[in-house]
């Protein structure tokens, strides 16, 4: 297991970067449109974002907060189809030099067949899958298919949360590959997070539970937030805050927003 972990392409790419902390950003496909997603991604990559997760919208996004849930719903209302989303993802992988991850809910995988979804993701060069409603107990086959079809190129990304005890973190850590997505607090995406000693203690427990790089998400909004995470995690995930900037100030503002965050780096 550990041997497979160290050979993962995503992990190598993260480890190869010399920046003190890396930025991972989030895009909801089809919101407000795929054309605009493309412009936003251009901005993000130009501003030096290190990893991008592309969310395939689902009608029942239980783990997402109001802003991202609304984006899911709006994208679907405007006629988003998974097929065109996958085409967009394939094109993104070719277009940008950074790792691209897919985030979605398991029913989207099931509708196409979980194995064939994973196989297609591997073929496209997607580096990881984040599926928050497929817990460890149910993810056995999915992890196996990632290894089989990805051959080190596609990781099944696990989530660590502050409600998990050490034994649970260790159980998840044993299966971790590529990176682990650490959820900063209880609640959904987009709410405020306190960067307090309890969070730092949680991140120390995360570090003890796995050897793969850590990403911290949920409530990372500012330059200061990112700065506080240096030395604690390899990646800071910025999702809701960037969507808000995009909606209120337009596409170019997204580039400025991420350039600002990068000054922390």
């Amino acid at each position, binding site marked *: 297991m550990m041997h497979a972990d160290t050979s993962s392409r995503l992990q190598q790419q993260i480890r190869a970067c010399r920046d003190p902390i890396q930025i991972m950003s989030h895009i909801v496909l089809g919101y407000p449109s795929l054309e605009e997603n493309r412009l936003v991604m251009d901005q993000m990559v130009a501003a030096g974002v290190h990893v991008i997760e592309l969310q395939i919208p689902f009608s029942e996004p239980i783990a997402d907060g109001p802003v991202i849930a609304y984006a899911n719903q709006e994208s679907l209302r405007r006629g988003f189809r998974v097929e065109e989303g996958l085409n967009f993802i394939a094109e993104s992988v070719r277009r940008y030099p950074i790792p691209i991850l897919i985030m979605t*809910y398991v*029913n989207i*995988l*099931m509708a196409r067949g979980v194995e064939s979804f994973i196989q297609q993701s591997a073929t496209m060069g997607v580096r990881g899958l984040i599926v928050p*409603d497929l*817990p460890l107990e149910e993810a056995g086959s999915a992890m196996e298919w990632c290894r089989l079809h990805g051959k080190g190129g596609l990781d099944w990304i696990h*989530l660590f949360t502050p409600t998990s005890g050490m034994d649970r973190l260790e159980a998840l850590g044993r299966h971790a590959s590529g990176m682990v997505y650490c959820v900063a607090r*209880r*609640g959904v995406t987009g709410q405020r997070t306190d960067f307090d000693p309890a969070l730092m203690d949680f991140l120390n427990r995360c570090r003890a539970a796995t050897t793969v790089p850590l990403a911290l998400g949920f409530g990372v909004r500012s330059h200061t937030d990112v700065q506080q995470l240096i030395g604690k995690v390899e990646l800071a995930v910025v999702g809701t805050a960037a969507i808000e900037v995009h909606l209120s100030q337009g596409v170019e503002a997204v580039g400025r927003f991420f350039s600002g965050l990068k000054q922390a780096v």
Partner: protein
Amino acid sequence: MKKGYFGTFGGAYIPEILHETFRRLTQAYEDARQDPQFWREYLEVMENYSGRPTPLTFAENLTRHFGRKIYIKREDLNQTGAHKANNVMGQGLLVRRMGKKRVIAETGAGQHGVATATMAARMGFECVIYMGAKDVERQRPNVFWMQQLGATVVPVNSGSCTLKDAINEAMRDWVGSMDETHYVLGTACGAHPFPEMVSWFQSIIGIEARKQILDQAGCLPYRVYACVGGGSNAMGIFQGFINDSQVELIGVEAGGEGIASGKHASRLASGAGQMGVAHGYKTLFLQDGDGQMRETHSVAAGLDYVGVSPILAHLHATGRVRFASADNREVVDALKKLMRYEGLIGALESMHGVARAFAEMPSMPEDSVVIINLSGRGDKDIFTIADALDDPGWREFILQKARQYQNR
């Protein structure tokens, strides 16, 4: 078989943040189930607070009309007027055992919301109810009662603004509040242990009904009918007869404007349900080719749901339960008949079971004994029913009332 699975259905597809919460809930549920004192306490509460056992009423006039012996299980006589009381009081006792102080719930028709609000008032819990904005509009009287009972009602404006969206919103609350909050899921759906636990509390219906029919008719029924939204009232009564292989069990889904119209909420009988995962469990959902949940339609808000109990999906797959549907028109006709013949005002949800039973009467041998589960009473549906019956007197009353409010 894997824990929490019924055949290939069920499971616990929950975000990692809730893993520990579900572990503790499952433990509390299993401990309660092992403890005979817990069930005794449950029976006492249901007897003292909810008037159980509910009668099994012999429907004399319908029996004469159809030439089949018709018995009606009177879940409409529960506290708050529906079988929902069985589930909420059971979960309330469990919340007490777990030492939590706040409860949240989703509601469609509002019945489960009202039931949860009464339980919270009685047991001293803070209570928040999530309800689709469309349902808030359709079921204003229930919103009024929930608020009077001290609950906060949160209208949900996301997605299709109905039951499934209320479930999502309740889940969003729970992932942030699980330390002090229990989510009182209203039906035999969701992640393990909910389908099993809710069915356990509802099994009181079938335990009573089996004893009552043997006492009154002297034999087991030929058929048992129940409506199926999420499936908790059907699970409740079916469990009493599940091991009596000669008893045919029929679950009746919402046919809406007719299966052919596509505007319905029939997941099993229509054959339209596809295997999927949402709301924490695996079952047959009404969804499109991409896996997005479809809109559902029914005159009865409580049946208007995209998924169905994994236990019922399994019993459908094994053939133990047969599934059928009743459309909006059949339901309203059956209600008129039930009111005129027996003086019973059934909830529109429950009337689906009644309507289908009426339709199938000719196919049963004469003098067959039939049980229909009347899961709730229809007073709450007065606006919808008055609309469906296009009652001129009611319309005049509402107009007059509106004028009164306007002039204030």
